[in-house]
């Protein structure tokens, strides 16, 4: 390439970088847009109390989304996270309160089952969609057996924790930032995190380089279990009592959150910060915004779908050709 042709080539490169930048900040941009919409429709919502109210359920959704993200990182999909969150909720509202040791053991067992699933899927080369589909029935069954009727009560320490009112910044925002930063540094900035993501990007190469693929699957599914447990506990800390079906919607919400946050189904391309932002967007879009906009209840679910489509369409328009 001659020196003369360089400036001419620079313009498309700059445009490409701009597009890439836009793509990266798109999740945050859509969150800001939704916040602006809320501020415009109801300025009083943008306050300490308003955020506390609107983002209350965002913590469990964000945790479930991260659980899903770990699984998506290694090119798998978890269709059981929602019922697992429900099961954890039922255990939290019953055993964890009455017999903490038994409760902790059961939850640890749940995480162990998750890690075991990772091993099973890898060793038998099974489609994760089906295995987790089957597991979704298992968790739901266990949840119903644990808590046949809605009820139970969250342990007091959990209620206190989820009800924290720190000065200036509402608790949900602090929690979301904290969770996002911790996972970001663990998965995106640590050297083993790169191996874990590499297992999704090119498993064969990671295997040839001497890393155990079995171990990466066990770790990622195990982490999904850990975050599923955290999500279920956070959920019960907010709702105070449980119901066997309480987490069912989380399966699809968590997948949508990961994709909204800029993650992709294959290739280990995920973004923890994006996933948390995606979950916040979904949590905000889920109800408060729609109530402020006076959308009839019939159309609230539909409006959710439209928001998803609009955000993803915007991402497609910014083009993957450049990246």
């Amino acid at each position, binding site marked *: 390439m001659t020196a003369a042709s360089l400036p001419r080539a620079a313009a498309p490169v700059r445009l490409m970088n701009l597009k890439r930048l836009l793509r990266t900040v798109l999740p945050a941009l859509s969150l800001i847009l939704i916040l602006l919409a809320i501020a415009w429709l109801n300025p009083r919502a943008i306050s300490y109390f308003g955020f506390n109210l609107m983002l209350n359920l965002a913590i469990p959704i964000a945790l479930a989304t991260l659980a899903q993200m770990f699984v998506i990182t290694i090119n798998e999909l978890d269709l059981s996270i929602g019922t697992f969150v429900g099961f954890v909720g039922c255990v939290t509202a019953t055993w964890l309160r009455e017999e903490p040791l038994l409760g902790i053991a059961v939850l640890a067992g749940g995480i162990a089952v998750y890690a075991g699933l990772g091993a099973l899927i890898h060793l038998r080369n*099974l489609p994760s969609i*089906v295995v987790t589909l*089957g597991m979704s029935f298992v968790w739901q069954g266990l949840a119903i057996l644990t808590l*046949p009727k809605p009820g139970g009560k969250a342990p007091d320490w959990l209620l206190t924790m989820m009800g924290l009112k720190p000065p200036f910044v509402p608790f949900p925002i602090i929690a979301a930032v904290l969770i996002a930063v911790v996972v970001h540094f663990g998965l995106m900035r640590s050297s083993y995190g790169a191996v874990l993501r590499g297992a999704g990007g090119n498993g064969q190469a990671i295997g040839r380089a001497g890393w155990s693929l079995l171990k990466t699957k066990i770790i990622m599914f195990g982490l999904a279990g850990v975050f599923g447990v955290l999500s279920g506990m956070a959920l019960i800390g907010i709702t105070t009592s449980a119901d066997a079906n309480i987490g069912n919607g989380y399966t699809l919400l968590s997948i949508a959150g990961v994709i909204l946050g800029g993650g992709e189904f294959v290739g280990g391309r995920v973004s923890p910060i994006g996933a948390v932002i995606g979950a916040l967007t979904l949590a905000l879009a889920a109800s408060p915004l729609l109530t402020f906009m006076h959308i009839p209840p019939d159309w609230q679910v539909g409006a959710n*779908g439209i928001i998803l489509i609009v955000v*993803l369409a915007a991402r497609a328009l910014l083009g993957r050709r450049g990246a």
Partner: protein
Amino acid sequence: MDRVKKLLATPWIWSFVGALLVWVAAIVFTRGYGAGGMLTAGLSLAVFMVIVGIGQMFVITLGPGNVDLSLPANIGLASAVAMKVMGGNDSMIAVGLVAALASGIAIGVANYGLIRLLRIPPIIATLSSSFIILSIDISYGRGLQIKPPPGFASFTNIQIFGLPILAILGVIFALICGIVLQRMIYGRSVLAIGQNMRAARLAGIPVERVRLITYALSGALGGVDGALLAGYFRGASVDIGNEYLLSSIAVVVIGGTSVAGGKANVPGIWGASLFLVLLLTMLNTFGVSAGVRLLLTGLIIVGVITAAGGQQVTR
């Protein structure tokens, strides 16, 4: 002997064996009481799973990531459309069926539009569209329980020598789909795309047209299923299709179709549907609680898929 060995090597035989075992277990428990009735009811209920299962199978065969999550909402809307158009009037049955079919095809085409034009991954595209369909259904159906015309309701319950007419039609339909899949250009194109989309495109297969047809077909089958379900259960409702989200995917995979795409199996869908339906029947006759029933269903699905093993990695 060779023939037996060959039969045992076919991937779909195990789902039928499983269905048979479950049925025998149920009969042994009831000491033969209601064996025929169980089979008749099982066949009828399995048909609804087979119809959506075949639609889902074609979509999944297109390759990794392709799946239709809008089927439950589609079934719900189509059931309402069919019942409203029929309006309890026997002379409008055909029109109602066509309306349900049209509603399903429209949904399928819309799904493809989202996937192709907006480049949204199919899982999320069909998920978002299912939210919208659900809203349309809620505001269109307005919670009314519309009864099917008497002629349509009795048609869905006709039995010939103890065999439900829907099951007979379902077997014929599955046969046609098997021929379409293995012997016709469309079916072979779907398989080729699932094996390697790039190679299929380079080989001159109209990839995008085939994908459009496949999503429309899945939508159409969802629509027909909704109308039939409303006839069989005597009324449309928003959540009539809910259980088919998971079961449509489950029958495809248990039936021996590869989730990685490019390998499909129609007989297996029938086997897997019978297996799942009879499994639920068996657990019901055992009188177990809902929790245990779900737990065992899940464990059996995981057990079956583990025993059947995954496919070898080819790429």
